[in-house]
């Protein structure tokens, strides 16, 4: 009954708001939309919540969700990840072929242009990638190009760059180019759907500041107006040649100072789409929005990482100790009571969005990730207890309400060992400081680690995190067996076999308990009754071009 009254409320407010603002486009848009089947730019515009992007909006410089939303709207690369299945599918690529998993021939489809009319050619890709990799451009995603031969010349670890272009990239024709990698990497083509690999038009290089003020891409939308820090208006690009044309007139991304305000605006009917439902509203969201709420898995996993550079944690009893901690955590209880089921207890080290064929293995962790107080207590005491008799879990206190779950995890552990002072959370004031301390290897106990996938590959969940010396191997885990299996998997030209080998490597991670998997994170979104066909892709970004208005 409550739900029904709320729905009526929302409908009324929407109607009043429409009438009050004399918003003709809403009603006339639905009329014209049915006659000219979505291709007309006059059909409705979706208004959606947005956050101020942290970095300048360049494809190779955007590594967070807010900037990523824009790139997804205005760019299409060689590959695109299917919003439903997360499979990498050809977008601009006619074909990407290889015989040895190291040299690739790429043919770019004909007939694609940027929204300013410039043709998308092989050069558009090669120039963009060289720009992204060059050290002098400070691109934060530069490391995505690290497998391309010659990367170490344009982006040396120390000192000055000795080349401006990567020797591994060669333009062989108007629409063709070749890629040579510095090592075998069979699933490399599947990484090319990541936004950092987007093509760039000439204006990006010739008039950079103008491009930043109003980015030009080759995707289904073009930027109409960009007021930095407050709003970006995107409109459907009518000449978009791709198959995934926009089914609405455009998207207005509005920066909100607080996601609570965005949610209030949604309930009041001033906003169509919120892709980050605030945690304290999760209780009401079902009745407030009457089913217009999505909660689907995203390619994000939360874990507890360990400082393997600390002798206390890398010692012979380490495996038992880490496994004991894992078994002391009651995951279902925490995901239900604290996260209102917006997290799913993790049973492996990847993510459900990969699917079975992609390498996700439900239950791989087995009893080691299942709450078992007695077994956990025995494991921990067999290992000689916590180093120094105490366990601290470090987290950053400024975002993500990490304190709540860290306290809950500690509570679990304390109950298991029967000492309510054994485990404590150690908050660090800012995220930057937290990252800083991790980077300087100052951790003395487990610390919070979150991993959002760059591309839906099992490789991305294992290699960057657990390979010896890898970029995000914050705890400095190192295991020769694991490294060997990863190299073997990368050299494997048959994809199914590659995935199998990666799963064997994941087995090593399990046996060593390299990190304690906690839960998979879901993407959550709420939307108004003005729009339909709303979904989140595996990166928890709304699939804007599929949204229908009216």
């Amino acid at each position, binding site marked *: 009954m409550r739900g029904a009254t709320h729905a009526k409320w929302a409908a009324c*407010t929407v109607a009043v*708001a429409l009438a*009050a603002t004399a918003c003709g486009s809403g009603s006339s848009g639905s009329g014209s939309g049915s006659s000219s089947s979505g291709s007309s730019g006059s059909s409705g515009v979706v208004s959606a919540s947005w956050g*101020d*992007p*942290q*970095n*300048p909006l360049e494809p190779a410089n955007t*590594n*967070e969700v807010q900037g990523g939303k824009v790139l997804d709207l205005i760019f299409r690369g060689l590959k695109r990840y299917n919003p439903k299945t997360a499979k990498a599918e050809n977008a601009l690529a006619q074909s990407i072929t290889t015989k040895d998993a190291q040299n690739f021939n790429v043919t770019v489809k004909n007939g694609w242009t940027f929204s300013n009319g410039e043709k998308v050619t092989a050069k558009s890709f090669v120039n963009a990638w060289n720009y992204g990799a060059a*050290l*002098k451009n*400070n*691109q*934060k995603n*530069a*490391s995505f190009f690290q497998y391309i031969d010659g990367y170490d010349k344009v*982006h*040396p*670890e*120390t000192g000055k760059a000795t080349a401006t272009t990567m020797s591994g990239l060669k333009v062989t024709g108007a629409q063709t180019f070749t890629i040579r990698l510095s090592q075998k990497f069979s699933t490399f083509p599947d990484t090319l759907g990541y936004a950092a690999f987007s093509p760039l038009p000439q204006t990006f290089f010739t008039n950079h500041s103008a491009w*930043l003020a109003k980015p030009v891409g080759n995707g289904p939308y073009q930027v109409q107006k960009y*007021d*930095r*820090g*407050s*709003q970006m208006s995107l409109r459907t690009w009518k000449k978009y040649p791709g198959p995934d044309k926009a089914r609405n007139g455009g998207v207005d991304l*509005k*920066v*909100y*100072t*607080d996601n*609570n*305000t*965005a949610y*209030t*605006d949604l*309930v*009041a009917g*001033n906003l169509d789409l919120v892709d980050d439902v605030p945690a304290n509203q999760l209780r009401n969201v079902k009745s407030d929005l009457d089913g217009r709420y999505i909660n689907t898995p995203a390619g994000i996993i939360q874990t507890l990482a360990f400082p393997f550079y600390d002798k206390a944690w890398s010692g012979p009893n380490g495996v038992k100790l880490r496994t004991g901690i894992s078994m002391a955590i009651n995951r279902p209880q925490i995901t239900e009571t604290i996260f209102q089921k917006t997290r799913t207890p993790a049973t492996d080290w990847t993510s459900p969005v990969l699917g079975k064929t992609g390498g996700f293995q439900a239950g791989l962790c087995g009893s080691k990730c299942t709450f078992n107080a007695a077994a956990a207590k025995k494991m921990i005491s067999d290992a000689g207890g916590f180093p120094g008799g105490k366990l601290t879990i470090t987290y950053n206190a*400024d*975002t993500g309400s990490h304190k709540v779950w860290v306290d809950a995890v500690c509570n679990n552990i304390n109950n298991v060992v029967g000492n309510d002072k054994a485990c404590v959370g150690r908050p660090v*004031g*800012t*995220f*930057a*400081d*937290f*990252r*800083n301390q*991790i*980077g300087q290897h100052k951790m003395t106990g487990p610390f919070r*680690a*979150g*991993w*959002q996938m760059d591309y839906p590959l099992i490789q991305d969940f294992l290699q*960057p995190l657990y390979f010896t010396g890898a*970029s*995000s191997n*914050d705890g400095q885990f190192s295991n020769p067996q694991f490294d060997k299996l990863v190299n073997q998997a990368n050299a494997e030209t048959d994809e199914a076999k590659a995935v199998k080998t990666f799963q064997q490597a994941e087995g090593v991670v399990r046996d060593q308990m390299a990190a304690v998997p906690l839960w998979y994170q879901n993407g959550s979104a709420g939307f108004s009754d003005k729009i339909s066909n709303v979904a989140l892709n595996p990166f928890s970004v709304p699939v804007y071009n599929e949204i229908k208005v009216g």
Partner: protein
Amino acid sequence: MGRYVIRRLLQMIPVFIGTTLLIFLMVNIQGDPIAGLCGDKQCDPATITQLRKDFGLDKPLWQQYLTYMGHVFSGNFGTAFNGEKVIDLMGSAFPVTIRLTLVAIVFELIIGIVFGVITGLRRGSFVDTGVLLLTLVVIAVPTFVTGLLAQLLLGVKWNIIEPSVSSEAPLDELIVPGLVLASVSLAYVTRLTRTSIAENARSDYVRTATAKGLPRHRVVIRHLLRNSLIPVITFIGTDIGALMGGAIVTERIFNIHGVGFQLYQGILRQNTQTVVGFVTVLVIVFLVANLLVDLLYAVLDPRIRYA
């Protein structure tokens, strides 16, 4: 008068240097801001080194401060991490916050002084007790409660206003947020005016003016109010700075992209350039407002002279 102004302006210099240095140190003490730029990943070390060099973070702190101040005096506030010039951020944020502050100040002046005069003249009456209670409630309830309540009732339940302010932030949309922002100060202005009026109502010059047969409104406005306004003006003067810097809660609730929002983001991202730049301007606003208040004293009470 001229010498007084110059002396005051000179006094601003150490205050200015002191505050900016303090803010600079406070932001820097939190650690390396570049580490947080790459999300949950490790930034690649070469890019970190390069970025640190570009932002001047590889130099010793005192040198960073000197370089920064040197740039500030030539009007260059540096670049925020998102590639935008801090001066552009200010250009978009300050007009909005100034509008919001103006709305708040106008409410404070009009409602606060009118209530203050009424209650001051009718002490102990029903109106006086009512307003007294009301001001107590307003002072006791935190701004974010008032703000969220106003947003929920006016914006969502009764649909009188939009729950969030659009990015252009026109004056009419700022009325409710301005009122919320002004609420606490408004209560103080009421109380201050009341006390001041009540005290002066019994003074000789008011009795003289009344005895001369001046009309009551003239006695109250020209004689009584003018002399009673000094503490109120002092309060409002200091309040301008406080409102601009302290609008952060109101700005968050009503989605206003003003100074508070930029400062909050700057602190969260540990962006020294943004935080110090904005605080520098706020310090100047604060100092100038105080100077104006001091100069206004002479207008209100000619006995106060600045030699």
